[in-house]
């Protein structure tokens, strides 16, 4: 299975269901790759899976794809310890892979179920850019007949916030689009802040669209709760100490990394929010404090 076919399959998955998280599409692609793989040894299988993950991160450089791939690999490798025979091993891997996919497709619903209770009647919510998980949470809250209004930041350079505003208007939720620079101005009117995450790091902090860190600092200054909603497959084994500690391969879009020579001219697309600014994280593993994220990661990976 060569690179072009792999990437095409991934793109097809993304097109088929625009609502699907990119990590889920990546995992589906990897599962397909596993099914079609003609390798003879388990070690060879692992190597080719790693190579496939690298290809996919080359296509879509978000943190989620990398974390999803690593999680899948880990999930699979545990199987290889139990069965020695390759063909049986592969069959078990495929079954487990399907099970894993089923589980994570339910994760957004679980998160929405946990989070919507935190939105009280009459609440004013601030959110950042376009996040499908946050959208799902707000859908659930609206379905529970709660009345709330939303402020969305425009989120330059790709104006993803406008997309979010459109989706919310379809739910009949009163929404206002604000400038990224107006976050501090708007925060005194707001009751709570909910954002999604592209990746959740080991320290309990998050990696998300640029502008999130600013929002977190302002909400801390205003003493407003800052909630993060993320599925568990976004937990990644990174531990950045500050903004510049985040690896370059996540900061910029994949095509930028390939074409541009001098990265200092480019503006990063993501930033890192440290755990001290986050109140709670809503995941399909439950409602967690930032320090509990490391415990969960230790359970997942160690």
């Amino acid at each position, binding site marked *: 299975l060569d690179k072009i076919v792999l990437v095409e399959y991934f793109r097809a998955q993304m097109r088929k269901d625009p609502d699907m998280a990119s990590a889920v599409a990546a995992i589906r692609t990897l599962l397909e790759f596993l099914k079609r793989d003609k390798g003879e040894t388990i070690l060879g299988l692992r190597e080719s899976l790693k190579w496939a993950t690298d290809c996919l991160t080359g296509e879509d450089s978000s943190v989620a794809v990398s974390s999803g791939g690593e999680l899948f690999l880990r999930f699979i490798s545990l199987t290889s310890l139990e069965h020695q025979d390759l063909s049986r091993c592969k069959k078990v891997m495929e079954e487990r892979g399907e099970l894993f996919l089923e589980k994570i497709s339910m994760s957004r619903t679980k998160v929405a179920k946990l989070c919507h209770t935190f939105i009280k009647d009459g609440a004013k919510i601030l959110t950042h850019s376009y996040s499908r998980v946050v959208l799902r949470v707000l859908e659930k809250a609206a379905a529970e007949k709660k009345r709330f209004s939303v402020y969305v930041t425009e989120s330059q350079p790709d104006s993803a916030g406008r997309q979010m505003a459109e989706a919310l208007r379809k739910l009949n939720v009163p929404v206002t689009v604000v400038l990224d620079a107006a976050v501090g101005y708007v925060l005194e009117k707001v009751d709570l802040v909910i954002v999604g995450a592209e990746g959740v790091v080991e320290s309990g902090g998050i990696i998300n669209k640029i502008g999130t860190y600013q929002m977190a600092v302002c909400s801390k200054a205003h003493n407003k709760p800052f909630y993060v909603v993320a599925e568990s497959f976004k937990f990644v084994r990174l*531990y950045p*100490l*500050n903004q510049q500690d985040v690896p370059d391969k996540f900061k910029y879009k994949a095509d930028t990394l390939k074409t541009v020579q001098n990265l200092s001219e480019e503006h990063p697309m993501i930033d890192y929010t440290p*755990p001290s600014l986050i109140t709670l994280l809503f995941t399909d593993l439950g409602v967690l404090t930032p*320090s509990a994220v*490391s415990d969960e990661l230790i359970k997942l990976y160690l």
Partner: protein
Amino acid sequence: TDVIIESSVGYFTEGPERKDDIVKAKQEGKELTKEEKQRLRKEKKQQKKSKEKKDDKPSRDSEKEKKPASAASPAPQTPTQPPAQKAPSAAPAPVPVPASETPSAADKPAKSKAELKAERRARQEAERASKGKKGDVGPQAAPGKPKAPPSELQPVVKRLPEHVQVDNPEVLKKLAKKLERQQIPLRSDYGYKVSLFSHLHQYSRKAPLTQQLGIPSTVIHPAIVRLGLQYSQGIVAGSNARSVALLHAFKQVIRDYTTPPNEELSRDLVNRLKPYISFLNQCRPLSASMGNAIKYIKKEISNIPSQCKEEEAKRKLLNCIDCYINEKIVLAAKAIAKYSIEKISDGDVILVYGCSSLVNHILCEAFEKNRKFRVIVVDSRPRLEGREALRRLVQKGINCTYVLISAVSYILPEVSKVFLGAHALLANGYVMSRVGTSQIALVAKAFNVPVLVCCETYKFCERVQTDSFVSNELDDPDDLIVTRTGTTQLEHWQEVPSLGLLNLVYDVTPPDFVDLVITDLGMIPCTSVPVVLRVKNVDQ
């Protein structure tokens, strides 16, 4: 020789002949035979029973009389007897009173025989007086209640063995009893102690415990005696160094050990090690890493199957110890260095404090891997350990700067990362390390500089502490006397009644100041230490 208090207590109840023999044997440094030990134990049990049979109240009354007399005694005699609690008998209470007077006065560590005789006579008078007052006093829930008869079944507040309580005479008495049973001399405290830390020991380096041992001491193995001296004089210092030295000494002990007839190696060897551990504890309080190492060895010894031949068992144990050192210290250092190098980028300015063997190892490794960075070494009196770190780093060729801790806020704007070593990591995420570490972490937090702590997992400790007072170590206060120019204005500090010198060894850093802990299991936040402990316990 130094006095073992208990030996005098039994003087008037038992026939003096047998006791004399035993006391003589102790003073000669010969090991008591098993029978003699058993006899001692029996006698003590009888003494306890006879004391309880005596009427409690009159002796309580006599204790009350003693109380106003002892009220003049200094602060360390805090009210230790809350009502309805088992307390030791009134008789030994007067003994710690004169004992506590002497340290607060001049620097007389040992009591003379004459003083002891006087104490004994005073106690005998007290007993006689109490016998005369029988039936005089009604039932009073006096605070100074002696040992309650077992029929009362008062709930006893059990103290954990790790809690040092030097200002509590009952605990001191228990400790003295234990040491006497193990035939180890009791090291006495030196100098005036600052009242906040009066519950800790403060020893003088000029009076090492080994001076009070007879030569040759058949009770304690010479490798352990040497180790104890090295600890108390500060020749072997640093958490890893102390643990490794301890394990090597134990290897020597195991090599020289022969199982006595009718004894099992797994049980007898553990009992052999107990007095050694008490001795080392007296020389210098045990560190958390040493405690974990000892636990491991004891577990390994008791897991030896009884049908195992002695040679094979000894070989197995020596192998275990070697494995432990290799895995937990040497390989762990390599793993930690691997993770840390990811965090060191070119152009970094790294701040280190004092001399941590692990941090030095990391920096040397990173330098070998061609990372371009420079180091700022922060140092503090009186130990000036930073000089050793500076020497090692400069020898490698690393670009270094040296400052004292008072200049930390001046130099921090230049720093990009702070690397700290740890003595132990507590179960609530607090980091226990050399005094001054929490200061540096605090200032670094104020400047938003990331603080990284490097610590192997064998230093993780189940203890919980939120401040540096509750459990610490006091070093020799005379270390603070000499200044840079060699003047010693503080030379006669003991004569000034309101002056106290405090030489703390450790302090505790809260987890909010620490950004990252690098262990051999990976990089974890400070709050995940209990998870690692839990996982480790499950493994074992």
